[in-house]
């Protein structure tokens, strides 16, 4: 099977969760796909001229406009009578999705374009050197939300992008994780089987920005899900339709393997606050695995 739509040889860092997830996405989507990419790590490491890792038609315009450019591509394909046989995927990182590109994304979702938008969420502006974004978690140490005598890092929790996307009344919203590659592919295929705007947010560990060992990418991704900090959920037609059940590991297990949370390990009060976020997610989405005894 030829799965080289995002081929090897690109310049992503060792252990890059985004490159893994992006390959899962495009291989699941297949060759009849046009990709529109925001500026960011993915665009930089996959298209340094004169090389390109992409085996599908691919266009990058600016940091924040992939959703709008994709809207134009989709309109053009409809005009040409080709849309029914071609997928359009718009994609970008968390900053270009939830911050600077939120307006363009909202417009795309609201207008009902038949596009899958994929947000690769590595929880900060990694391409420019790990600055905080609207999707940076609470208490994360980044270069613009550093911990210090008067701060324990990022002061706000993650912007609830899946809920914001879902509030547009679109047919499909899901989260996924580089920790579960097959789940990414299942969700991409499901999304592309549905006509209309779809939003998929994939948690992609970044060894450089999160400061974990590159060989831990999958494990770190799984820990985020297993502790309840990154719930894997699906909304269909506005309703929560599926969640990945978890054993609810303590958040500390996830935090302690990453340098970006190192400052918290001697601060149990802050860890409690983060545990409260996980507990809230577990409660809200019903994530807890029920034992046979029904505990």
């Amino acid at each position, binding site marked *: 099977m030829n799965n080289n739509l995002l081929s090897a040889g690109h310049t992503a860092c060792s252990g890059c969760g985004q490159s893994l997830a992006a390959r899962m996405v495009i291989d699941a989507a297949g060759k009849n796909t046009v990709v529109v990419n925001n500026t960011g790590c993915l665009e930089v490491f996959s*298209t340094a*001229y004169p090389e390109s890792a992409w085996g599908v038609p691919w266009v990058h315009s600016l940091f924040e406009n992939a959703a*709008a*450019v994709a*809207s*134009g591509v989709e309109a*053009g394909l409809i*005009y040409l009578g080709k849309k029914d046989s071609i997928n359009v995927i718009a994609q970008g990182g968390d900053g270009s999705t939830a911050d600077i590109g939120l*307006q363009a994304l909202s417009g795309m979702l609201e*207008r009902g374009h038949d596009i899958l938008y994929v947000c690769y969420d590595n929880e900060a502006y990694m391409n420019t050197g790990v600055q905080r974004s609207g999707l940076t978690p609470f208490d994360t140490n980044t270069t613009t939300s550093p911990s210090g005598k008067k701060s324990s890092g990022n002061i706000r929790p993650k912007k609830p992008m899946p809920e914001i996307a879902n509030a547009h009344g679109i047919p499909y919203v899901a989260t996924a994780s580089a920790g579960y590659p097959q789940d990414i592919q299942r969700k991409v295929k499901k999304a592309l089987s549905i006509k209309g705007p779809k939003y998929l947010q994939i948690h992609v560990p970044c060894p450089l920005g999160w400061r974990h060992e590159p060989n831990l990418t999958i494990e770190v991704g799984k820990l985020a899900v297993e502790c309840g900090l990154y719930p894997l959920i699906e909304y269909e037609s506005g309703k929560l339709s599926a969640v990945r059940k978890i054993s609810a590991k303590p958040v500390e297990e996830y935090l302690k393997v990453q340098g970006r949370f190192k400052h918290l390990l001697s601060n149990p009060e802050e860890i409690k606050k983060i545990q409260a976020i996980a507990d809230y997610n577990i409660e809200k989405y019903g994530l807890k695995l029920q034992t046979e005894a029904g505990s």
Partner: protein
Amino acid sequence: MRQFIEGSHAIAEVIKLCKPGVISAYPITPQTHIVEDLAQMVADGSVDAQFVNVESEHSAASVVLGGAAAGVRSYTATSSQGLFYMSEVIFNIAGLRLPLVLTCANRAVSAPINIWNDQQDSISLRDAGWIQLYAEDIQEAVDLHIIGYKISEDKDVMLPVMVCMDGFILTHGIETVDIPSQEQVDKFLPPYKALYKLDVDDPMTIGPLVGPDYYMETRYAIQKTLGDCLKIIPQAIADFSKDFGRNYSGLVEAYQVKDAERVIIAMGSVCGSIKDVVDELRSKGKKVGLLKIVSYRPFPVDAICNSLKDVPKVAVLDKAVSLGSYAPLASEIRSAFFGKKKAPKVISSFIAGLGGRDITKDSIKEIYRLLTAKELQEEFIDLKPELLKEKYE
């Protein structure tokens, strides 16, 4: 067919004839009538296009970028703040070498907010890599859109074209306009066949990261193409004039310049008023003339110098300011003549009509009157001195 028609409606009619497949726009005065008409045409089925109602001008420009990248003729229109909000995408479209036509309904820029006409918006984007053509009247605006697509899609060009028409004066003015037939337009402007596009059967990467080893050549290539356009544009205009029975002269239009002692250089609708004043003053024996600039980008240095080499005194009328420096058009006219043996002795600079202040025949006569042996720098016409005395204490 000749119709008594509002400028915006005429533009919508000609865009319909150009058969774009993707149209996207965001409302801004005074561009709105154009896109309202097109939306109605799409709703009625008389235009077979995808009309994408976006949440901002940034997205309007991005949508037509996407349409063009998909290989489809695309169209948008905007004005003033809208053009500025597009500006990031405007530079990007030219860099990606995508063909497109955009109507700029020229309007002043904030602050203070002002919806009326001057040309500060498009002039401020002169370095974006777009071809900028300025219309004197509604007929010329209509025709420049057809010519614009022809030039933009030329495989030796592949650059976007901005057709600039003065807001309200032309967009909301009503004139008798010859709207060409569909057959005429189809013959001149065949269906768009993209040189390169997003094609699943022939995948290509558009808009990659380009480092120091390659970037300069991409900018050089645009500069070179715009230089070539100094031949391609007049040829397209000549072809159009022949096919459609017009008598356009090309990059510039010299009106009563041959024996003139004093000439005003200007762009856009004010040229019509200047022609009236020229006729009036000529009837009184004054040797005055007008040089109308149609193509501001590329800037037709040779055409300008050839037209004016024997004219002793030239006045440049700018409807924009480069705050803190020389007026934009005046500074380029002076540069054009720098070091030339045959050049006007006087090149005076005038700024008029900002924020919709009328440039009347008297304003134009005042410019001719002030065009003496004494060279003037950035002389504002029709300023109200009483307003300048107000102090904020």
